[in-house]
């Protein structure tokens, strides 16, 4: 099946992002196609490149980045959610005259149109961290 995920939760604070990642791994292992990961609201913090995790805690940022890279997943961060939360790519950073970008290289920034597109092209869309 073709599956997309909507991730609402920040890493660390609540468990939703962790569940989404494990679900995504299990879906891939079962041979399903992940059409898109859409990070919405606090979920955009999963794409924050400046986060530093203690060595003895699970670094979800690194785990997402590795999963996305290994499986060439389409990972989109909602632009409206991201701007308010300080998750910017180079283009947004320079547009809003901010001194630095903070989006992990594995993620794209785009609008809710990408979420609608995921609904259109997926058999299932599952929400995590609501």
């Amino acid at each position: 099946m073709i599956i997309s995920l909507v991730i609402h939760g920040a890493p660390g604070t609540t468990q939703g992002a962790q569940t989404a990642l494990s679900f995504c791994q299990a879906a891939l292992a079962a041979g399903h196609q992940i059409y898109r990961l859409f990070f919405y609201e606090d979920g955009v913090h999963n794409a924050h490149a400046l986060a530093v995790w203690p060595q003895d805690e699970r670094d979800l940022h690194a785990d997402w980045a590795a999963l996305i890279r290994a499986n060439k997943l389409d990972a989109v961060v909602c632009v409206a959610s991201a701007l308010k939360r300080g998750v910017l790519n180079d283009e947004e950073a320079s547009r809003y005259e901010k001194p630095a970008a903070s989006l992990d290289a594995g993620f794209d920034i785009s609008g809710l149109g990408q979420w609608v597109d995921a609904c259109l092209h997926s058999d299932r869309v599952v929400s995590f961290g609501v």
Partner: protein
Amino acid sequence: MSTLHIVSKSPYRTDALQRCLALVAPGDSIILIEDGVFGVNLLTPDLKALEEGIRCYALSEDLAARGLSVAAAGIRPTDYAGFVVLVCEHRNSLSHG
């Protein structure tokens, strides 16, 4: 089958499980995940609905992480792979936050 209800919050702290039970229909299934698995003790007495062919699951990884096991009859433990199967088996899913 129609809807997979995903309950991820503690039934003691929030009304997520109650809101799920208010909407669940024959043919639907329920999966308890994250702090939602605290519902394993509560679900059966509450659930006349279970008699109507509503299956109920609890994510085994979340149970084990909390030192819990499935106490009530009629609740089946399942792992992430089983969670994926459930999502595919149902037409849609509703995450009760």
